[in-house]
C-alpha cells in the first residue's frame, strides 16, 4: 500500500522535516537533568571538559552518518581510530617540533582516508555487503595498529594538548571544532554532491540510471567516514596524550547507536549529520547523569542500557500512540 505519510504543507513541514528534531529535544532534556544533578555543569571549565570527552564520539558519529546516508554502514571506524591513533603518536616521536607535528597529523588523516578508500573499493566496486566487509576490514586495520605499536605508549607535546584542551579564538577548542563541522556540513548540504549522497542511499538503481556516479559516490562516503574517524582519533590523541592500539574498538557500535538516536535511518537516503552528533552527546551525557544520580554500582550498566533503550524507543512509542486511534 502507499504508506505515504500525509504531506503537510507550509512552515509546519519545514519544522517537522528536521530529522534531528526529536534528538534535539532529547538532548535538551538530558542536559537539564544533568544540570539538575550537577549544578556546576555549566561552569566553563566543566562544560569544556565534557565537550572534550564527547568530541571523539561526535566526530565518529558524523562520519558514520555520511556512510549511512549513502546507504552503507561502517563497522571498521573503531579500528581506523586505533590505527590512526598509533600512526600519529609513532610519527610524533619523543620530542616533536612543528614539522613533525604537521607531518604526523597529515599522515594520520591520510591514513584514515586510505582505510576508508579500502572499504569503499570493496563495497562500491567489488560490491561486497557493507556490514561484513567493514567487519572483516576492521581486523586488518586493528592488526596493523598492533603491528605499528604492540603496546600503549608514546607521548604528545603538551603544548599541542594545551591548544586542544584550552581555547582557540576565545572559544573552547572542542566547541569550536563542533561548530566548524556543523557549518561545513551545512555548506556540503547545499552542494550537488550531498544530493548524490542522498540519492544513492535512497534508491541506488534510480540514481544510477539518472546518471549519478553511484560507484564513486559510495567510495567517497567511506572515505569521508575514514577521514572523520581519523579526526576522532586525533581528538583522542590530544585528549589522552598517548598512543593505544586498542583505543578505538569499543566506539564502533556506539557510533551507530548515536546515528539512530540522531534520527538518521539506517536504511539510508535520509537524515543528516547534526542529529547523530547530538545523539553522541546524549549517549555521553547519560554517563554523567548516572554518575551524579548516585546509581548503585551494580545497577549502573542496567540503568544505562535502559535509558538508551527508552531513548531509542521514544519516537516509535509516539508514532505507536499516534497510530492507535486510526
Amino acid at each position, binding site marked *: *500500500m502507499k504508506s505515504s505519510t500525509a504531506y503537510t504543507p507550509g512552515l509546519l513541514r519545514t519544522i517537522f522535516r528536521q530529522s534531528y528534531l526529536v534528538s534535539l529535544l532529547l538532548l535538551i532534556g538530558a542536559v537539564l537533568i544533568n544540570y539538575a544533578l550537577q549544578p556546576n555543569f555549566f561552569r566553563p571549565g566543566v562544560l569544556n571538559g565534557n565537550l572534550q570527552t564527547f568530541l571523539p564520539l561526535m566526530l565518529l558519529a558524523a562520519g558514520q552518518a555520511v556512510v549511512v546516508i549513502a546507504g552503507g554502514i561502517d563497522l571498521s571506524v573503531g579500528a581506523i581510530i586505533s590505527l590512526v591513533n598509533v600512526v600519529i603518536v609513532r610519527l610524533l616521536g619523543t620530542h616533536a617540533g612543528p614539522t613533525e607535528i604537521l607531518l604526523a597529523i597529515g599522515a594520520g588523516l591520510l591514513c584514515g582516508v586510505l582505510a576508508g578508500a579500502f572499504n569503499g573499493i570493496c563495497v562500491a566496486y567489488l560490491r561486497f555487503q557493507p556490514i*561484513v566487509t567493514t*567487519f572483516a576490514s576492521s581486523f586488518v586495520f586493528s*592488526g596493523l595498529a598492533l603491528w605499528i605499536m604492540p603496546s600503549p605508549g608514546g607521548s604528545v607535546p603538551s603544548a599541542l594538548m594545551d591548544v586542544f584542551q584550552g581555547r582557540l579564538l576565545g572559544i573552547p577548542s572542542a566547541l569550536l571544532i563542533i561548530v566548524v563541522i556543523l557549518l561545513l556540513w551545512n555548506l556540503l548540504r547545499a552542494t550537488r554532491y550531498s544530493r548524490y549522497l542522498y540519492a544513492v542511499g535512497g534508491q541506488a538503481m534510480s540514481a544510477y540510471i539518472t546518471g549519478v556516479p553511484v560507484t564513486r559516490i559510495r567510495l567517497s562516503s567511506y572515505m569521508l567516514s575514514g577521514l572523520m574517524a581519523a579526526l576522532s582519533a586525533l581528538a583522542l590523541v590530544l585528549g589522552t596524550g598517548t598512543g593505544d592500539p586498542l583505543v578505538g574498538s569499543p566506539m564502533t557500535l556506539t557510533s551507530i547507536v548515536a546515528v539512530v538516536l540522531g534520527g538518521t535511518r539506517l536504511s539510508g537516503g535520509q537524515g543528516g549529520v547534526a542529529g547523530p552528533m547530538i545523539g553522541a552527546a546524549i549517549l555521553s551525557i547519560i554517563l554523567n547523569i548516572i554518575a551524579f544520580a548516585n546509581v548503585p554500582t551494580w*545497577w549502573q550498566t542496567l540503568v544505562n542500557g535502559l535509558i538508551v533503550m527508552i531513548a*531509542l524507543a521514544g519516537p516509535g512509542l509516539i508514532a505507536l500512540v499516534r497510530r492507535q486511534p486510526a
Partner: protein
Amino acid sequence: MNKSLKLNPALIALLLAIGLFVLGGLLRPGFASYSLAINILRLAAFLGIVAAGQTLVIIGGGEGIDLSVGSVVTLGAILVYHFSNGQDALVFPALAGAIAVGFGIGALNGLGVTLLRIPPLVMTLGMTGVVQGLILAVTQGALTGGSAQLMVNLVSSPLIFGVPGVVLLWLLVGAVLWVVLTRTPYGKQLFAIGVNRTTSRLSGVRVPAVLILTYALSGALAALGGFVLLGYTQRVFLNLGAAYTLPSVAAVVVGGTLLAGGEGSYLGTMAGALVLTILTSLLTTMELPESMRQIVYGLTLLLLLSAYGRQRKLRG
C-alpha cells in the same frame, strides 16, 4: 543475477571449508589430523548453534540482525549453571528455563523492531546492554552454581567415533531448521517477508507475528548455545558469549545468506561456521604475531566474501 555464482552457496562454503582444512594440513603438518578435525567440529558447533537464530533473523529481511545473541548466550549459561547447580536431575528443567528466558528476550527484540520500528541493529544492541546490566545487577558479579556431569558428558566427551555429543546436537538443530525453513508454513512466510513485506501482508501473512516469533527463536537458540558452551567450559563468566556476536553474523554471510533477506539456508550457515572455525584454528596453530593473525583473518574473510554474497550490478 548471475546464475553461475548463485549455484548453491551452501555448497561453495562447504568446499571452502574442506579446502581450508587441506590447506591447513599442507601449511602445518599435524593440522589435518583426526583429533583436530573433531576439535574443529566441536568449536564450529558452538558458533553454528548461536548462528542458527541469526540465520532466521537475517532471512526475515528488513535489515534484520540480532546483536544480542552474545549476551543471551552468557545469560543462558549463567541460568543453567545456577539453577542446575551441578545436579543431573535439574539440568533439563534449568535448560528449559534458560531457553524460555532467551525466547522472552528475543520476543522483546521482536516487539521493539515491529511495534516501535527500532532498527534491528540498534534494538538488539541496546538489548545487549540491558541483559548485561541485568546479569550484573542480579548476580553482583558472584556467579554461583555448578555444571552437572550429565551436561559435560553430553557436550565434551566423545559419543561415537570420538565425535562429541554437541556435534550430533548441532546436526539435530541443522535438520530441524532445514525442515522449519523449507517444509513449514512459517519458513515459507519468513522467506516471503524477507523479500517483500507488503506483498506478504496483502497475501494474508501476519508480518509482525512472524517477525516477533523469529527474534524469539533467535533468543531461544542463543540460550541453547549458552547451554552447550557451559557444557564445554563447565564454568560461567560474565563475558562468556560476547565473542560470538559478530562471528555469528559472519558465519551466516559466508554461508551465502543475503543480508538483504529473503534468500539463504541454515546449511550454508553451518558450512560458514566451519569455515570461520577452521580459519581461526589454523591461525592459532601457526606461529604468527597476533597482529599478523588479525590481518590475515580479515583479508581471508574479504576473500571469502568475494566468492559470493556480492550485491547486484548497477548496470545490467
